[in-house]
């Protein structure tokens, strides 16, 4: 009932949230014209899960994101990092194609910034 499911469009990713397991998945591409309007409800939902002490596992399976999306993810991780410092278990699985160094680096940059979130990197083959 508290789950969320958003279908992918040309410019926005597919998003699923299972509030029972605490698993979230972003996949596809993200370059919305209005990143705040797309991501705000998602961020609010994540924050409410954090408040109810749900352990979260966020899977990023994206191949392209623009800088506004990156900014929204930075806010999201900043918020989750604060909850992780208070004892919530928050993990990120950062998936990228084995030869996509830039996508890997984006994940590594996040890992460096938000040390209370557990990062796992998942290179995938073709």
């Amino acid at each position, binding site marked *: 009932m508290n789950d969320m499911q958003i279908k992918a469009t040309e410019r926005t990713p597919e998003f699923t949230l299972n509030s029972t397991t605490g698993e979230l998945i972003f996949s596809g591409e993200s370059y919305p014209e209005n*990143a705040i309007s797309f991501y705000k409800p998602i961020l609010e939902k994540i924050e409410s899960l954090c408040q109810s002490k749900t352990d979260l596992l966020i899977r990023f399976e994206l*191949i392209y994101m*623009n800088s*506004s999306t990156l*900014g929204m993810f930075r*806010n999201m991780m900043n918020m989750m990092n604060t909850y992780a410092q208070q004892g919530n278990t928050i993990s990120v699985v950062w998936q990228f194609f084995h030869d996509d160094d*830039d996508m890997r680096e984006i994940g590594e940059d996040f890992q460096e*910034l938000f040390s209370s979130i557990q990062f796992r990197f998942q290179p995938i083959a073709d």
Partner: protein
Amino acid sequence: MHRLLERQLKKYLKGEIPEGLAPFLSAVDAAYSDMDHDKKFIEKTLEISLKELDALNINLQHQQKELEGALSVILDSIDYATRLQQGQLPDISLVKKRFAELEVYWQPRDQIGGDFWWVSPVSPSGKFNIIAVDCTGHGVPGAMLALLASNLLGRIYSVRADRDPAEVLMKLDELMRLGLNQKSDGSAGNDGCDAAIVQVDPNSQTITYSGCGIDLYSVHQSGLVEKHASSNISLGYPVMPNKTPEQIVLNVEPNQILLLSSDGALDQIGISPTGRKMSLGSTRFKNILEQAPLKNCHGLIEEIIKEMNLWRGSEQVRDDLMILAFAPFAL
């Protein structure tokens, strides 16, 4: 009796009704009348539907005209804004003389956008700065951020013309956050920029580079290409950077070409050799520079655009594009 039945009786039975057929004929007569009634009903319905369709069609045509009108107003307005934004960029014919060579490729995805470049005034010691900025977003919001950022740069350098690039980037970060009223939770906006500054010092034939999200590529005539990675910092966003950008000083040979690119070309989605969608990426970007047949500013930019379009194929351009290529020192 139904007129058609009457005619048929006249034609085939000479008007005489055989005995015992009267109930049957009466049923046929009733069926004929029913059919007529149904036909009239269907005709009436069709007529009404047609009228409704006509009305709808006229309505749609009207709406389309209104939409076309609205679109044309928006496009006219953006067209006008394009001239304004182009006017905000440096006049290349004026600043070109400060370099041995300078070429700029500026192509917003939606006519106007968040990428811009800027050249600072020359300081009393002869130094000046060339700056590439990539603001969040595209189109009108991107351009509004670009306008803010370029004004801030003007303000920052008006205090002192020979400030260190890393110091200028931190100042830009601070002023942009203030200028956009950004709150730490991102509720009041979530915007900012990537930027890189190359400070050229003709006296020592060196440059000082500092970058936040925009790397510096250095192309030697030998074909050697070096990538100087930028710091992992984004400027102006609500989440404040937890460090300051690094700064490096490089000796630059005559005809060595330096290149700054917004992420538009680097991140452009295309189809990988194995058939999946993926970004061009910095490794391929560096490769393009290494393989470029002409190692001059114009040749390098042309090669990047050509190769990026090949990579892109039928994929849409995702972002604004800007590439600055310059040789700071002549022989």
